[in-house]
């Protein structure tokens, strides 16, 4: 794998992380991080949608008329999201999750990460790198989601993936963690940690 491919894959996970650096895709990341299971499903859905949409738009990139560029992108993304949503509704294990995540799955369409990566990368690059870029950004997004969900579920419900951890030790749940504002504060802290380590990301 050459250096460029490597950078395409690794960049979105740290230095170019869609949530903490590019500040995209915030909306859904707050609502679905109450528990790890939901965060994982959302992360996987975004990885699939972002990867596939980038791939399809990159394949079509030389044929898309400029004036309807945004509309065609939206249609491709919307189609992928609906397919993911329909699939989630069909499997027993994921059906109850789809009920919980319903509005937020639909909102993947407007998840700035997906559209943002198509505009910034897929429309100007070959299909395979675009697929990798889409997947990598999904992974970068998913990583933050899982970190936030880890803390929120652990301190908010005392469990991890539904398995009692802290609650088994007699811990009283911190109700504040379950509420959405906590997700924002947690992301703020993650940004703080990341920028203290990677000083070149700091603003002034």
């Amino acid at each position, binding site marked *: 794998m050459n250096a460029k491919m490597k950078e395409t894959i690794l960049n979105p996970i740290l230095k170019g992380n869609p949530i903490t650096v590019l500040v995209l895709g915030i909306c859904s990341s707050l609502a679905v991080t109450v528990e790890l299971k939901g965060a994982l499903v959302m992360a996987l859905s975004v990885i699939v949608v972002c990867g596939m949409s980038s791939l399809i738009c990159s394949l079509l990139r*030389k*044929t*898309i*008329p*400029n*004036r*309807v560029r945004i*509309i*065609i992108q939206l*249609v*491709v993304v*919307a*189609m992928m999201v*609906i*397919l993911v949503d*329909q*699939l989630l*509704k*069909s*499997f*027993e294990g994921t*059906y*109850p999750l789809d*009920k919980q995540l319903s509005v937020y799955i639909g909102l993947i369409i407007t998840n700035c990460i997906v559209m943002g990566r198509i505009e910034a990368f897929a429309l100007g690059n070959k299909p395979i790198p675009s697929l990798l870029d889409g997947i990598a950004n999904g992974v970068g997004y998913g990583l933050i989601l899982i970190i936030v969900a880890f803390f929120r579920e652990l301190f908010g419900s005392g469990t991890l993936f539904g398995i009692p951890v802290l609650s088994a030790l007699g811990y009283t749940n911190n109700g504040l963690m*379950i*509420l959405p504002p906590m997700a924002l504060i947690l992301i703020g802290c993650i940004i703080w940690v990341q920028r203290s380590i990677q000083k070149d990301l700091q603003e002034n």
Partner: protein
Amino acid sequence: MNTNSNVYTVIYTTVVCVLVAAILALVSSSLKPKQDANEKAETISQILTAAQFGEKSEWQAKGNAAVLDFYKQNVAQAILIDGSGKKVGELSTADATVYGKSELKAQNYNVKDGKGMKLPVYIFKNGVSVVPVYGAGLWGPVWGYIALGSDLKTISGAYFDHESETPGLGGKIKDDPAFRAQFKGKSIDFNDKAAFSIVKGGAPAGKANAIDAISGATMTSRGLDEAINVWLGAYKAYLTKNPEE
């Protein structure tokens, strides 16, 4: 080919839209049976939870097949009754046919009009009967199931669901087992002003047909109260006619 010409733009957009619509329609129709199966199992597990055959989370873990099997083995009959308490139809227990949310929504219009009702009663072999209720919460519909003992008056359990009530407040009708547990042992009293009440500020101690509302969720509690009373009213003829089912 000039990708920016008007003709090309229009044709391209049309082709893409038609293609996408076709793909989606194909996927949606082929997946529908599976989705309907999930919805059916969800409804049945709610009925079973109300009837105290186990907790919802347990049924979810056991899977669709187990839910359907248990229902088929333990249900005696599933009848449809009208406003006068007369049996007007039956739902197949062999197929585990049940009225899901959309059927309840349709019947809600009939209940509100007071005519044309076909309301289900799920009668189990152990004498428990489960009746659904449906109504408007604060932000969207609320519905659920109330399980009655063989005297058709004493409540053995209940389960409620909602679409868009506020999580942590109105959402408690579904998520808080303590709210549902209040229903156990209470009873319906058609001789009282309201057959059953969810009382803001707490039900009077010892009152058999009242429970406490959820604090901070007055509107949802009120909506559920109304749903229960309106639907129990529709079932009244049936429930008071056959006291020894």
